[in-house]
């Protein structure tokens, strides 16, 4: 295995250091002034680049098994590597649903074979995502895939009794329920954020209250039974308020925000271009500012991509007929830089917390989200924050093209990604 010396890298944006990677671990981190001839290693000039721990996504749709026309574990993990990720959690809404030990082990094994990024399957909470009875959560936890995160994402566990039981049950193996907060009756056939614009555009509204009511209920339930709750894709100012309140109570609740909710607003729906159709929907500028503030002050713990690939024909149609979701893995770090770092809301250490350390902790991952320090697993991203790039849908490593950022100029570029010392991306290209 080749050893690498990354010279002059600014760890978490700090002073330049040399990072020696050997045998899959970080062998040393030294000041550049003490540089000696390192011997038989491949040197990578990382001058001016920021070094971050490998990113961890708690919310990725890899679509395999079932929708290999949209994405496969291989193409999705290639996209992840290009985005600086070394671990992704693969959501359970595949066909068949990842609701048994067999399916989660299959996804886990496909991830190992692809080798671009570690894949940690998320198990479904209920059989077939039907919201009726619990899936065999324990069997998935005990499987080779060692599932700790359970979610019916795409659907809400709306039955309060079932949600309570799920929260209680996963305590036995330190699991967490990642809730997709969407009150189903309030959002039947919903197409976009319910606001001034939905009324004018004649598109069925998805009211903020449908998200906030479930979050409030689940925070109370989690507190009542003393369980861990994770809230997926928080999108409204009201949700941030509720979570801020839950945090003051000391309850064991974590929450994520998606890059697109940090940047884009419902105004884009006026184009009727389904590239902007996503669930939960793009909200208002006030909501964007609230989720940014929530991510900055720690009310929202992490950024998760909700990377949702769809084949072209599912987006090249009427808004109402189009699928929900947008790509996220390859642009997430740039969006976070643009909305959070360049605006002064957080620094690079804050980015590492929110995109690596904390998501790894929520997922109970060992070997990810660790600091860049001697003896730690060599999961490292080199990032050129000074670069700018124009996003081209055709250049995505993902099998799908449904990025809402096409044509936008965004800051930053992933130069290299190391997964346990092995480069998955070098010179901005997949190895």
């Amino acid at each position, binding site marked *: 295995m080749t050893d690498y010396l990354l010279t002059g890298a600014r760890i978490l944006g700090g002073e330049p250091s040399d990072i020696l990677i050997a045998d899959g671990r970080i062998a040393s981190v030294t000041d550049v002034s003490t540089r000696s001839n390192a011997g038989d290693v491949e040197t990578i000039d990382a001058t001016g680049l920021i070094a971050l721990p490998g990113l961890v996504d708690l919310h990725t749709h890899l679509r395999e098994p079932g929708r290999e026309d949209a994405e496969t574990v291989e193409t999705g993990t290639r996209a992840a590597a290009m985005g600086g990720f070394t671990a992704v959690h693969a959501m359970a809404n595949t066909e068949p649903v990842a609701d048994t030990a067999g399916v989660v082990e299959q996804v886990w094994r496909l991830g190992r074979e692809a080798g671009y990024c570690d894949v940690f399957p998320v198990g479904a909470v209920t059989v077939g995502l039907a919201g009726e009875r619990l899936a065999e959560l324990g069997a998935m936890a005990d499987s080779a895939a060692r599932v700790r995160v359970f979610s019916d994402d795409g659907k809400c566990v709306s039955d309060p009794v079932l949600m309570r039981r799920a929260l209680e049950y996963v305590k036995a193996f330190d699991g967490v329920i990642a809730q997709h907060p969407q009150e189903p009756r309030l959002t039947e056939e919903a197409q976009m954020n*319910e606001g001034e614009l939905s*009324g004018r*555009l*004649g*598109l069925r*509204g998805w009211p903020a209250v449908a998200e906030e009511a479930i979050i409030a209920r689940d925070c109370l339930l989690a507190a009542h039974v003393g369980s861990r709750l994770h809230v997926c894709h928080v999108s409204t100012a009201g949700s941030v308020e509720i979570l801020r309140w839950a945090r003051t109570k000391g309850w064991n609740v974590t929450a994520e925000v998606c890059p697109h909710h940090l940047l884009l607003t419902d105004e884009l729906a006026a184009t009727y*271009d389904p590239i902007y159709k996503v669930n939960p929907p793009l909200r208002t500028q006030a909501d964007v500012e609230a989720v940014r503030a929530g991510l900055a002050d720690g009310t929202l713990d992490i950024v998760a991509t909700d990377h949702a690939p769809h084949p072209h024909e599912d987006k090249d149609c009427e*808004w*109402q007929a189009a699928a929900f979701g947008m790509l996220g893995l390859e642009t997430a770090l740039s969006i976070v830089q643009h909305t959070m770092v360049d605006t002064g809301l957080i620094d690079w250490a804050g980015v590492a917390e929110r995109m690596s350390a904390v998501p790894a902790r929520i997922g109970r991952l060992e070997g990810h989200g660790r600091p860049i320090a001697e003896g730690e697993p060599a999961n490292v991203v080199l990032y050129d924050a000074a670069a700018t790039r124009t996003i081209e849908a055709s250049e995505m490593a993902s099998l799908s093209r449904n990025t809402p950022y096409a044509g936008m100029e965004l800051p930053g570029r992933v130069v290299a990604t190391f997964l346990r010392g092995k480069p998955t991306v070098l010179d901005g290209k997949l190895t």
Partner: protein
Amino acid sequence: MKKHLLSAADLTRDDAELILETAEELRSLADRPIKKLPALRGRTIVNLFFEDSTRTRISFEAAAKRLSADVINFSAKGSSLSKGESLKDTALTLEAMGADAVVVRHWASGAPHNLANAGWSRSSVINAGDGTHEHPTQALLDAFTMTRHLAPEKGQGLDGRRVAIVGDVLHSRVARSNALLLHTLGAEVTLVAPPTLLPYGVDSWNVQTSYDLDAVLPKTDVVMMLRVQRERMNASYFPSVREYSRRYGLDARRMATLQDHAIVMHPGPMIRGMEITADVADSERSVIVEQVTNGVAVRMAVLYLLLGGAEPAITTGDTVPEPVEGSTGPTTGDGENDA
């Protein structure tokens, strides 16, 4: 004028007035033995209907034929549940046939925008009703009808006129387009409905709203009743048909509170006994049948102006398109054709 007519908001006041004036010229054709002009001879207009609407389709068809265009009716039924041929493939097919204009009716809000903007087709797109979004030619024919009754002098507009639009505003494309166009034309619109049937965010529209029909009627110049589907009752928008009719239906007693000159409109199809009683629909104040006649003239004007390109408007009389041989040309309007 823009290349497409997707929303009533696409029309400036000048655009809208040009259409209404042109329609006034063209309306006189309806009273002539040969109702045909050669203006769009050799042009192809496709009526693309993804949703049944016999009334709107035949209105556009009559309008296109009176301008001598070739008309193709394309009924591509399909819903979001049973997807048939995609809108894109349909558009590519029509493009290959060389359609100059596509008149589209679709169950999905925004489908005409997709047709016009997705790069599938170069034709002019006319929105003939999309989902619960808009129906701009209906708004134009309504404004035309109002103008004929309330502002019969040439050049007189709808400024300051009060229009009450009553009923299921939430699901109504007619209400949206009317609210936009009437505001552009200077009229004051009041939307009257139970709170459940007013859209979220209606405060940001340039309209008044009211939950009380009786309070609005004595002050209004126009009352436009919207159809209310019985099925809305099952979704708890209102408790019962009887209660809806009692609070928001237009009957003879309520009609009697209108000002003498006020008119009653309905975009059709009506549900007699639900939002409007038969005696009101058939009364002298009702201009519902005239709306249909005016629809053809207004749609002729829209097709003519969108496809006429750089040609001058025909409002100055001497630029009226040449009549077909054997008929006499339209004259400038002097009110002789008032219904």
